[in-house]
């Protein structure tokens, strides 16, 4: 059997991430071989539930985010990302469950704890009457670790107009100001809620570059409903849907375990009653079989194929983009739900 490993444009890590890291002359963050949930957690959510009368925004959410990771929390609109983040930041209170952020229970997060934590959100209300310079000078007072040089560098890099009032800034500029004011004190954890939403691609790339470059060893939690932008720089990814975490995984491991498999067989295949559980969306037509392998291991996958179909004339194992993986998972989850129903 001949085997081909195809690399598609936009696939995980091998694509956009490495491009950004290369452009910035940075090494990708080391990814441990041990599962990340054994690493010290910067964020830990346990059975987190948030109800608004009859509506459950979060439904027993469990999540661990390892220190030093760039964690992309993705999911469709209304999945509960913003609610989870607001509970983490002690802006909202959970109905039940527990949220731990760095060294604090999130319900006790206040005052000086925010010297170690940055928060940037798309819908945050900034004091719009302040100029850029005054805003930075004002918030500077609250942070003992504020780095003036870094502040100046960020202002320069973001090309922020120092004397312009925040209300006169564009949305992208305001996001840059918020980001500058959250990076300048070198927080241990930076939480960003849909920071790139509605921004043009140029501004978005600038922000992403700056975040990756300037975050240092900080843990980053970024929520987004745009899988493409997460794929470009996140090291870990979590998928939230209907207030529950569908999965949370290191991006590299996710990329390595998913493959789009295509088999060219001599004749029309006869499908057995049971297929390996890791195979998703199997599609057999004439002499070709396509499916998604969610636990790709070359030897095991090959032996499974041989066991079920016999020798294939040709097999391709194509890496998948994050978007393709999520679509596959979402379709699978939906189908499982319909079956249960």
């Amino acid at each position, binding site marked *: 059997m001949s085997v081909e490993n195809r690399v598609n444009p936009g696939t995980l890590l091998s694509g956009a991430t490495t491009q950004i890291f290369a452009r910035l002359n940075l090494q990708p963050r080391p990814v441990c071989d041990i599962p990340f949930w054994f690493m010290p957690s910067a964020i830990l959510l346990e059975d987190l539930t948030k109800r608004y009368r009859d509506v459950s925004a979060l439904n027993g959410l469990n999540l661990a985010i390892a220190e030093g990771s760039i964690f992309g929390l993705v999911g469709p609109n209304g999945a509960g990302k913003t609610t989870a983040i607001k509970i983490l930041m002690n802006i909202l209170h959970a109905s039940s469950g527990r949220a731990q952020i760095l060294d604090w229970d999130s319900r006790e997060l206040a*005052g000086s704890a925010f*010297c170690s934590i940055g*928060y940037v959100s798309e*819908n*945050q209300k900034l004091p719009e*009457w302040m100029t850029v310079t005054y805003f930075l000078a004002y918030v500077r007072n609250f942070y003992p670790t504020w780095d003036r040089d870094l502040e100046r560098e960020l202002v320069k890099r973001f090309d922020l107009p120092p004397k312009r009032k925040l209300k006169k800034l564009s949305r992208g500029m305001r996001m840059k100001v918020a980001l500058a004011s959250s990076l300048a004190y070198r927080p241990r954890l930076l939480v960003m809620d849909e920071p790139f939403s509605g921004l043009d691609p140029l501004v978005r790339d600038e922000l992403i570059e700056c975040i990756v470059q300037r975050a240092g060893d900080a843990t980053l939690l970024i929520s987004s409903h745009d899988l493409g932008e997460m794929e470009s720089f996140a090291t870990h990814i979590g998928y939230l849907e209907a207030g529950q975490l569908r999965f949370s995984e290191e991006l590299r491991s996710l990329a390595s375990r998913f493959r789009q498999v295509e088999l060219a067989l001599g004749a029309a295949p006869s499908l057995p009653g049971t297929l390996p559980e890791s195979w998703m969306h199997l599609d057999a037509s004439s002499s070709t079989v396509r499916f998604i392998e969610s636990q790709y291991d070359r030897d095991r996958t090959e032996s499974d194929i041989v066991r079920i179909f016999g020798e294939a004339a040709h097999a391709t194992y194509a890496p998948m983009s994050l978007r393709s993986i999520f679509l596959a998972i979402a379709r699978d989850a939906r189908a499982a739900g319909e079956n249960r129903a």
Partner: protein
Amino acid sequence: MNQIFYIFRKDVRRHWLEIVVSLLLLLYFAWKSPILWSPEPPFGPPRISRLLFGFVGVALCLCWWFLIVRVIQGESLVGDRQFWLTRPYQRRWLLAAKALFIISFVNLPVLVFDVVILPRAGFPPWHHVPGLLQGQLLLTAFLIVPIATISAITDSLAQFLLVLFGVVAYIAGLSWVVGQIPSASSASSEIPSTVMFAVAGGACLAVLVLQYFRRDAWVSRGVLLGSAGVIAVVLTAAPYGPLVERAYPQVPLGSLNPAGVKIEKNDKASETKYPVLGKTLNLYVPIETYGLVQGSLVVVDAARLTIYAPGGRAWNSGWVDSSHTLWPGASRYNQTFEVSSKFYSSTAGSEVDMRVELAVSEYREGPAQQITVAAGSFRVKNDAICSLGTGEYSNTTSLQCRSALNEPAFAAHLDPVSTTCTLPDRTWPSLQDRRNSGNSSADFGGGAGLFPVRPFDIDFGAATDPSGKNPVSIVCPGTNFSLATPALFSRYRLGTSINGIHLTDYRTYSY
């Protein structure tokens, strides 16, 4: 701790315009304040200046309100999108910074204003330090804390105005409801009022603490609504009648207190039959007191009328407010009662019995001070400055006075025989002993802080020549009068009845 300074400095920068406007208004107010106590010339000062002065006073209050709302909502405590929520703000320092701002730009200017105005009015401020502090306390309790509380549970000026409108509507509605309750007069509402202020004040402080330390707007709004409910229940369910009777016990039998009252026949009863219009009509009951000991004066705080009609029917007015002052010797006044038109009509033509009860406070005068009226301003005791009043017809029967912070309690006596004014006939009956009492109880507060000088009159009543048409002056330079401070002696109820009268005889005022 430094955060207080940072936040304060930021707020000053943010609200400099409002601060300047409020200070300019206060400056104008201070400049024009003598309007408050300067003697009124015969044709009055230009009306426009007094109107403008009043307008500036209102504008000043609104400006302070606006400033308080804006500064508190600068770090809004409602909602989840404020940038400061995820910054290292210490809540206690935030609260302290806001308090410092309000103290600096509302309390302190008012205190400075008071301290500047008092010497201009002739009162050394250091003699009135407790009163000044009490004024600050009242300013904080009645102007600042309620506004700060509403600001703490709202996110914008529009929301604030909406809630304020709701509060005003609630107060108006509750006042109307309480007004319909028999006996809910001021004489009986001391305990419910105390409960109301305690609950409202406690709720406001609880909400401020809750909002600044827990930021739970719904709980805070619940506390306010709950307290509004408690106040409504207390004010509508309070046993006003028994409260009056408890505060003003019946004079015990054998009491040494010889004071008494009786209902006079209305000697001015008109033959005119007044039509019955509306749901209620007024009855004017002439009351005469007797037996009050010399050196005492009685203030009628409330009165109650019961009418017994044939057939065992009765009607009761409940306790109604009154504020008549009665003196030793023959003292007469008309007590007004609002009577149900239906009951009145049902008794038309028949004889009824009437009982009137008065809840009174008796004051005893302390040692009197003899005062000689001077041509210009002259000091009366230590706490007031007076000058000769000038009336519309240039006759003088009163003194225009001012005091620091609150109106003093006084009882003034003038014997017209000793007047230095030129009189047409010193034996004319209208020139009998003249008396005037001001605020009988000296335990009033120090004012709301905005007017450190209280103007008041010592008015010895109208005096006319023997023709009864031309007013004459009885207070002139050199005239002596005595002034004493009355102190509360006791509170009690007096009652009297009159039988076999016609209500129609009491529909006109009896002089």
